[in-house]
C-alpha cells in the first residue's frame, strides 16, 4: 500500500513518527501551515515557521525517504489577531516556493469579519499564484460554517476543482460534493471521523474527489490512521486499486494541479496517473 497523507502537521511529530510512517508505506505528504497550539504574536514567528516548512521538515522527511510538500497561509484562528495580520504581506514570497503546493489552511474558525476578509484575500492569492486552496472547516457550528465556506469559494471565482474543503463528516459531505470542491476527511483516534465511518461514506459517495488524511498534530492524533483506513476499506470489500486511488492517486491529482508536486522518482513504473505536472523539471 503506497500512502500519500495530504494533511499532516509533522512539525509537531517526532522523528520516530517519520520512521513508523515510512514503514507503514507513507511515501509523500503535505504539511499545511496552521496553528501551533501556543498563539503567535509577531510576523517573525510565522516566517520562521514557514522557513521550517520549506527547509527543515523536507530535509527531516527525506531522511526516511518521504517526500514533503506544504501549504502556506495565515490560519483563520490567528487571522483574528491584529499583530499577525501583517503575515499576509510576506505570503507572496513563500507562495513561489517549489515545495508549496497550495494556499492553506484558510477558512473559518469563529466566523468573524476578520476571518471573512483574510479568507477572501487568501483565495485571491491562490488565483494569483496559480495554486489550489486548502480550506479548513470550523469545529464549532460546522454545518453553517461549511455553507458559508462554499459561498465564499464561489464568490472568489476560483475553480472549485482546485479547492479542498477539509474536516468533513456525514452531515457536511453532501453539500461539498455538490459544490464541485474536493472533499477532505481527517481520521482521528476518537471523535471527528473514524476509519469505519470513513468506509461508510466512501460506500455512499464513491471515491471521486475524496482525500483521506490523518491531520496528525500536537493533539491526540495518529499518523497511521491513513493506513488503518486503507485496511478498513479492504476489509469492507474495496479493491487494492480503490485503496490506491483514495490514498495515492487522488492526492497526487489534487495537489498535482499546482504543477509543483514532485513525486517523480516515487512513482511505480506501472502507475496509472498521467499528468505530466508531477514529473520533475521540464517546461
Amino acid at each position, binding site marked *: 500500500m503506497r500512502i500519500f497523507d495530504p494533511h499532516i502537521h509533522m512539525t509537531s511529530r517526532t522523528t520516530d513518527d517519520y520512521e513508523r510512517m515510512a514503514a507503514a508505506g507513507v511515501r509523500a505528504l503535505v504539511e499545511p501551515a496552521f496553528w501551533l497550539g501556543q498563539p503567535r504574536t509577531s510576523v517573525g514567528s510565522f516566517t520562521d515557521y514557514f522557513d521550517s516548512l520549506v527547509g527543515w521538515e*523536507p530535509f527531516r522527511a527525506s531522511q526516511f525517504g518521504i517526500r514533503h510538500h506544504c501549504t502556506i497561509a495565515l490560519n483563520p484562528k490567528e487571522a483574528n489577531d491584529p499583530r499577525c495580520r501583517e503575515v499576509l504581506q510576506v505570503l507572496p514570497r513563500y507562495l*513561489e516556493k*517549489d*515545495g508549496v503546493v497550495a494556499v492553506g489552511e484558510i477558512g473559518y474558525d469563529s466566523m468573524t469579519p476578520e476571518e471573512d476578509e483574510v479568507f477572501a484575500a487568501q483565495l485571491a492569492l491562490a488565483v494569483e499564484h496559480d495554486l489550489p486552496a486548502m480550506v479548513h472547516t470550523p469545529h464549532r457550528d460546522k454545518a453553517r460554517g461549511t455553507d458559508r465556506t462554499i459561498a465564499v469559494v464561489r464568490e472568489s471565482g476560483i475553480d472549485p476543482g482546485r479547492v479542498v474543503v477539509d474536516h468533513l463528516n456525514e452531515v457536511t459531505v453532501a453539500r461539498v460534493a455538490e459544490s464541485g470542491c474536493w472533499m477532505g476527511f481527517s481520521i482521528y483516534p476518537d471523535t471527528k471521523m473514524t476509519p469505519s465511518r470513513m468506509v461508510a461514506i466512501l460506500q455512499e459517495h464513491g471515491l471521486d474527489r475524496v482525500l483521506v488524511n490523518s491531520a496528525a498534530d500536537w493533539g491526540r492524533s495518529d499518523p497511521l490512521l491513513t493506513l488503518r483506513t486503507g485496511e478498513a476499506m479492504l476489509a469492507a470489500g474495496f479493491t487494492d486499486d480503490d485503496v490506491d486511488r483514495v490514498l495515492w492517486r487522488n492526492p497526487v491529482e489534487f495537489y498535482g494541479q499546482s*504543477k509543483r508536486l514532485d513525486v517523480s522518482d516515487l512513482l511505480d513504473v506501472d502507475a496509472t496517473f498521467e499528468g505530466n505536472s508531477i514529473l520533475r*523539471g521540464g*517546461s
Partner: protein
Amino acid sequence: MNLYDSLTAELTDTVWLDTALETVARQPAAVGRLFPAAGRRCGRWALAGLPGWTVDDAARVLLLTRLPVEALATELEPLYRYGDAAEKRAVLRALPLLPASEAFEPILLDALRTNDTRLVAAALGPAAASLPDAAWRQGVLKAVFMGLPLAAVADLDERADAELATMLGGLVEERHAAGRAVAEDATALLHRLQERVS
C-alpha cells in the same frame, strides 16, 4: 566550459532560462519570483558536466551573477533569508562568483548553524573563503560530526592549522575512548597535520 555552457548542454529548452537571465539584468526586482521558480522551470537533476551541482543550482547561480552590482546589495540577503533549502544552497554556491561583500559572512554563519548537510557542505565549499578562521574550524569539525565527506571542504589542507589539528585530535580521542569509529578522511587529515609538526 563555463557555467552557462555546462547547464545549457543538458537542457532541451533554454527559452525560460535565457529570458530570466535577461530580465534580472534589466529589472532586478524580478529575481524575487524567478529565483524560486528555477527548479520547476529548468529541472533539478544532477549535472553530468559539473559534479555535485544540479540544474536548479546552476540556473539560480547564473541568475545571481547577472544581477547588477547595486541590486545584489539589496536582493542577495532577502533571497537567502526567505529561500527554501535549495535556494539557500544556490546563494552559498554563488558567493565565490560575486563581488566580495560584507553580507557574505552572516549568510555563511547562518548556514553553518543549520542542521542541513546540504547547507553545511555548501558553506564549506569555495564560499568559505569569507569565513573567519574560528568559524571555519568549527565548520570542519561539524562536518566530521555530521558524517560529511571532507572532500566537500575547499582548500582543506591549505587552511587547516595547528588549532584545527588540536580540535580534531580531541574528537578522535573521545571517539576512541567511547569505542566509536572516526571517518577515515578525518583521521587521514589528522595524520597529515601531525606530520607537518614533526
